[in-house]
């Protein structure tokens, strides 16, 4: 992420940044209002440039009020996107999905590489309980909340009880999805170190795997309820094959990457580009989950070789540019008119999700006898939702086209609210827990606890 934590900037620097932001805004605004688009092949290029610059500048300008950089990136996308100042079109935003592919690959690689066996062992008990209870309580309670709110949801009013039951199960599955990208983004910006940071990262990454497993199970269980058809284990069978394939592919990839880093070690950014763009498409083509594969690959590089730090450094280098655009385009994707139309239901579902997450966190912390910091703030990293949750929503909407559009719209609105509030809460938690150091200048190489640092 841009803006490594360092000494605060002076008024002159902020003025320069505000001036630069104004200039680039005026430039793109003028070009977009000139009336003629001679060559729109590069409109996505201009959008990337704008998101990169405006996101970085806004994040720096929002820093004094304590907002995380992610909020700045999102805000740049929202302001420049098709619903506010319309500096770029819907089609342009859609074309930015290539950047998302690369970003998700980098996030998964870095996420895997951050999971050191030693670290995981330290938080194993806490994370295991949290995973189990967050998932179990989340699915049960959020299903109930969705059922209770269904009279207020336009596309569920006509449904009978069994389809509604199936639908609520799917919503609950979506609700337990977290955002690895937001978690990593905040940790990268704040250079946070300590028990809460370690727990949060380990939980969110492990939760990613759990949701990957949970989605096909939920789809399998919900299908006969929603469509009235027979119960079929085809999806479960398919996901079993996919997971085994993903882990196998990820292990191979991890070993190859470790060998490359050891033997060659140069021009790794180009290798990452090839992985992000080319290998992701190939994996999708052969029905292997790219996220799980890259996660496994990162884990293998970190734990089965001595090249983990190199991998993390390279991902951090490239991520400093890619993640800004990734979150900026997520902001540009936010459908503000839609959010305006269904915000009461979406807000109610989000509030319920936060309450369930906090409650489950308290229970799991008590059971696992967590450190007070985790007991108090362990829920904060679990609020954000972003690209991964959108992917889950998309999968559900595709599987059940009869209510796909409505489900997708409500999911996007809820994820948007979580996307905006989540990073702010997580940064606040890290600040309050005393795990961020605004004066630390050196980049954070990894979340590995320093020798001798007690867990929590």
């Amino acid at each position, binding site marked *: 992420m841009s803006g490594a934590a360092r000494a605060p900037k002076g008024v002159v620097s902020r003025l320069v940044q505000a001036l630069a932001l104004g200039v680039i805004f005026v430039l793109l605004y003028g070009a977009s209002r000139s009336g003629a688009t*001679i060559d729109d092949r590069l409109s996505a290029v201009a959008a990337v440039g704008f998101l990169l610059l405006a996101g970085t500048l806004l994040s720096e300008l929002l820093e004094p009020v304590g907002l995380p950089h992610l909020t700045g990136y999102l805000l740049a996308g929202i302001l420049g996107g098709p619903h506010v100042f319309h500096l770029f079109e819907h089609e342009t935003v859609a074309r930015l999905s290539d950047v998302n592919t690369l970003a998700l690959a980098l996030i998964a690689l870095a996420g895997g590489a951050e999971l050191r066996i030693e670290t995981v062992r330290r938080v194993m008990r806490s994370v295991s309980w949290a995973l189990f209870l967050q998932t179990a309580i989340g699915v049960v309670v959020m299903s109930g909340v969705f059922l209770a709110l269904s009279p207020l949801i336009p596309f569920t009013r006509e449904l009978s009880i069994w389809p509604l039951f199936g639908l609520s199960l799917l919503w609950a599955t979506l609700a337990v999805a977290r955002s690895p990208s937001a978690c990593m983004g905040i940790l990268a910006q704040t250079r946070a170190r300590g028990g809460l940071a370690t727990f949060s990262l380990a939980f969110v990454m492990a939760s990613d795997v759990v949701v990957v497993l949970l989605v096909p199970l939920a789809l399998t269980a919900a299908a006969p309820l929603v469509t009235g058809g027979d119960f079929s284990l085809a999806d479960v069978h398919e996901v079993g094959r996919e997971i085994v394939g993903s882990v196998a592919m990820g292990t191979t990839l991890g070993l190859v990457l470790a060998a490359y880093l050891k033997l060659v070690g*140069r021009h790794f950014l180009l290798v990452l580009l090839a992985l992000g763009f080319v290998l992701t498409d190939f994996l999708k083509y052969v029905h292997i989950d790219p996220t799980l594969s890259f996660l496994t690959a990162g884990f293998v590089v970190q734990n089965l070789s001595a090249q983990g730090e190199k991998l993390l450094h390279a991902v951090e280098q490239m991520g400093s540019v890619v993640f800004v655009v990734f979150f900026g385009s997520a902001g540009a994707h936010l459908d503000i008119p839609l959010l305006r139309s269904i915000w009461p239901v979406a807000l109610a579902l989000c509030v319920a999700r936060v309450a369930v997450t906090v409650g489950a966190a308290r229970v799991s912390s008590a059971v696992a006898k967590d450190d007070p910091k985790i007991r108090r703030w362990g829920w904060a990293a679990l609020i954000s939702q972003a690209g991964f949750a959108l992917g889950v929503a998309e999968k559900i909407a595709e599987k059940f086209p009869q209510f796909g559009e409505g489900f997708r719209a409500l999911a996007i609105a809820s994820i948007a609210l979580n996307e905006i509030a989540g990073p702010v809460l997580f940064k606040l938690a890290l600040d309050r827990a005393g795990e961020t150091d605004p004066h630390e200048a050196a980049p954070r190489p990894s979340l590995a606890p320093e020798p001798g640092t007690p867990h929590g």
Partner: protein
Amino acid sequence: MTEIALLLGLLALSYMGSILSSDRTIRGFGLPSGAEYLLLGFLLGHEVLGVLDRSTVAKFEPVLVVGAAWLGLVAGVGYGHVGPRRVRVGRALAGIVLAAFVGVGVAAAVFFAFTLASDVTFHERLLLAGAAGIVCSETTRHAVRWVVERHGAKGALSDALADFARASVAAPALALAVLFAAAPDQGLPGLTLELRALATLGIGIVLGLVATLLLGREFRRDESWGILLGTSLLGMGVAARLGLSALTTTFAMGLTMSLVSPHRADLKVMVTPTEKPVVLPVAVLTGASVDVQAAPFVPLLIGVALGARLLFELARGVLLSIGMRAARRAGALNGLGMIATGPFTMAVAVTIGMRFPGPLGGSIVVLAAGSVVMGELMGPLMLRRVLTRAGNIIPGSSQTPPPPSVDPGPPDYGRAT
């Protein structure tokens, strides 16, 4: 070939370019202009083998435009310096004037030839002549460096020719702004041609200043990449949207940074090594996008433009020998020593090809390819002869490893550690 396979191929080429530019032991490998990759692209393209079909290549057009504009930025950032040595203003101006002299000569020849032998309209003739002049004006610094490094050349003439070559890119870059401003379809119809050309430069200068301000006093390489990429991509996108030359905009941006930023040397170290990794995929894509059939007047254009270039290069040689004592021994041959064009010309041709699709753009890409190949065959050979005559090369003394007199070896920017 699928898009993914092509993307993988382009990334592999880029990887190869990184190795070629970073590894000192194989830096001399390959032709200075990268013309062999152009030929490779042409062979793989729809004109010969058909491995890269037209629709797949068309999907990568934005990559071509961005790659070409990036080369403009690289040229701008490195402008005015040959290695650690600053090019004197007088010499830089002389380099620009001499390049413009050849370009204007070629343009005039093409204009009159097409007046006599073709039925294209006046405006098209003007655009075609201007574009031909633009792609026939640059002297690639790579060819000069190649000869200097291979043969251990040292002396006043080799320094002067390196300076002229470095300065020459400004002529096509500036002329391109005028050519685009004169295009029939306009994004800024309310402005005059001069103002449109100035707007092209203005966007680049403003973004260059913004980038300089944001880079601040303290140079942090990781953050600088974000600023550099952001400003240059924004500049490319805005210029293209308005029908202006993205390459000139990025050139102006790079030049502004090189003039006002205290981090000029750091910036050059950052961007120079990216040149080769960008050139190779751009060259292959350009070669694959060549459409000889869509360029009906290619034979006439190539014959006239390249013939005129030879003549005006000889004239440039004469002018040089009159103006410089060190160049007197070689006489008119001095000009032929500067005939090699390279990646920058290809980038210019690509930019023209994308802005003026159809016969005009297609013909110019083919002409640029022809100019690169001719320069490749003739330039280094003639330059060697010129420098030998001037006493800058002692016959039989080729030096290895090459001296870093012209361009410093790039750092290993891609190292993961």
